[in-house]
């Protein structure tokens, strides 16, 4: 795998903060961050259904494998040198249900979280 494209929501403060954090992290696989439904996203992935991408984080490998929601979060962790072990831990059968629940909870309430944490600039 050569790179991962991450489709993120540029309207959410939390996502922008995570974006900044991701840029500082050492990586095994480079991450290309592209705003959802942007021209760039449409151009790179012409056959992808772009509607669900604004609800859930989406990660696409340079080979075209698509990951949504919790799986996308796990793929982002997997790309980071410091957190690759955690991606396996969180993807284990024992922890995966909790991972899914927590990730979708954060995802659904990301605007509220941004507002409370004062990240919605």
């Amino acid at each position, binding site marked *: 795998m050569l790179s991962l494209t991450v489709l993120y929501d540029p309207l959410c403060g939390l996502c922008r903060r995570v974006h900044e954090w991701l840029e500082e992290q050492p990586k095994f696989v480079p991450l290309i961050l592209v705003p959802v439904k942007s021209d760039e996203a449409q*151009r*790179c992935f012409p056959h*992808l259904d772009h509607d669900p991408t604004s609800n859930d984080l989406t990660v696409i490998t340079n080979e075209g*494998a698509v990951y949504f929601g919790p799986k996308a979060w796990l793929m982002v962790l997997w790309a980071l040198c410091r957190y*690759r072990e955690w991606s396996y831990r969180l*993807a284990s059968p024992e922890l995966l249900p909790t991972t899914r629940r927590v990730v979708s909870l954060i995802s659904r309430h990301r605007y509220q979280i941004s507002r409370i944490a004062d990240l919605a600039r």
Partner: protein
Amino acid sequence: MPVEIITYLVYLAISIALTIWVAHTLHQNGRVFLVDVFHGNEPLADSVNHLLVVGFYLINLGYVSLALKLGYNLASAQEGIEALSVKVGMVLLVLGAMHFFNLFIFSRMRRRATLRNAPPPVAPDAFTAVREA
């Protein structure tokens, strides 16, 4: 020759011989491991192996030298052998601890190296065509 001097000399001989033996074992068997960690980069593996062994020698010989002093007089050969066994036992324990510490470092290096080439944790949800930017 006084019993103390004989005890010291025997202590030094045994400790140094043991240190050399353990370092030699580490050097020989650690190499295969390091070559695997560094993906067949043998010069790098040899270099790291050598550096580890140098550290091993320094710590162990340092300990052997610091622990030499007995601090009391020996009345008989029996006391000499007893003092010797305590000293050599300590050296063996330190050598053992150092050896396991080295193994720990080797296995951690190896785990890091395997992590770099590990596959994704989950299977993809779908596939799509990618147009190069």
